[in-house]
């Protein structure tokens, strides 16, 4: 047999082996079931929050609702830490970071702009802001700095991301 077709044949076989070793295009049915199990309650709570959010027409009310979503995800962080599940921790941390960055922070900014310190809404804004900040700080501190989970790169990254989320909103401004 001539050498050139043999080379091509070997190449195709090698390529086929390489392709089959790659991860599949999507999760398997078993993985989907596991995800559903893990997320079922969270789906429900997120749906509730989304429906509630759609009724909120002021920035303060939206801050409050974002705070509830953040609290819910912070709870998932604690569950993942207790289960020493670095993958789950990384996943829910990403979502908590997104809610803080894309939901909580902009609405807090608008609320602080719209509600002046002597407004009747000001105490509630301070309370919600403080509560959100405390929740994020607690979530960051939940991720251990020693032990099995602490050695995972994903867990370390999650801790940093949670701390960044808390810093993103900061504590409420000091009262004058």
């Amino acid at each position, binding site marked *: 047999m001539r050498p050139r077709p043999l080379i091509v044949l070997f190449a195709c076989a090698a390529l086929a082996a390489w392709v089959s070793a790659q991860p599949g295009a999507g999760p398997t049915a078993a993985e989907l079931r596991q995800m559903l199990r893990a997320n079922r309650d969270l*789906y429900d709570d997120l749906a509730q929050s989304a429906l509630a959010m*759609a009724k909120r027409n002021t920035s303060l009310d939206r801050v409050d609702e974002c705070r509830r*979503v953040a609290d819910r995800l912070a709870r998932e962080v604690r569950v993942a830490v207790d289960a020493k599940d670095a993958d789950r921790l990384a996943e829910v941390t990403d979502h908590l970071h997104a809610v803080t960055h894309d*939901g909580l922070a902009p609405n807090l900014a608008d609320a602080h702009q719209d509600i002046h310190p002597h407004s009747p809404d000001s105490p509630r804004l301070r309370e919600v802001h403080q509560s959100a900040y405390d929740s994020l700080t607690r979530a960051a501190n939940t991720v251990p700095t020693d032990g099995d989970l602490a050695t995972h790169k994903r867990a370390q990254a999650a801790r940093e991301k949670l701390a960044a989320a808390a810093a993103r909103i900061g504590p409420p401004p000091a009262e004058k």
Partner: protein
Amino acid sequence: MTCDVARNRLLALPDPTRPTDDLLPHLGGCAACRAVQAEAVRLDALLKRLPVPSSEARKAAFLNALDAAGPVIRTRPVVPSSLTGSGAFKPVVSWLKRIDWKYAGGGVAACLVLGIGIWFLAPKPKGTEPEQAARPKSERLARMVKRTTDLATTAHAPHQRVGVFAEWTADLKGEACDVYKVADREDMNALASQYEKVVSEGVVSQARQIEAGTLTPGERSRVFTDAMKQLADAETDASRLAGEAPPNARDALAKIARTAQDGRRTLAKLAEGKQ
């Protein structure tokens, strides 16, 4: 035209002093709506007269500073990029054309075989355990979180929220269709209940809040058509799968199909202004 529609149209006009032709017949016969128009005109006039502290001193200072800086504005020159346009790609294309791919193909294949062999046989560095590949994340969960933040930041109008919730229901239906063969009854029923909630309290509820006259007929039609299509697809898919599903998934899929059908019918009536 109802008074509600007329009022909303008046408030959305670019200029309330110039009502559109289709508003005129209603205004001609309705004193209450004429009063609303008069108030809208008055409001616009008041807005123009809102008191604002004078800024003359600061303006004068700025103009003086401009004057003192001399007659000519000296700005930094803008340096044009030398890699713009298709010219930069021409040398690469001509190089590619010069290659004789008959022989190059064999060479590439040989390198590949060699490379893979070396990779398999080469010793791994000691002392480092590579981290296991991460478990797949739920894309659906990610989309739900994104939609929640959209509702918090950008989707404030009812017609925008209809779209967000319609996509939400599509995700829930998709989840049910993906797992119906392996999920247990409790999980499937939970999905079906969530679906029902989001359709009724999300899609339909927000659709009811779309105020008459706030969207053009084309925009309004698009909002309703898109949402009804999502529900129609859900009805079709869920009905079909309910017929072949295992017993623990059948009821849930049937419920999703019914909910989608009811939701679609309600939207159709709302679109026609019949509810």
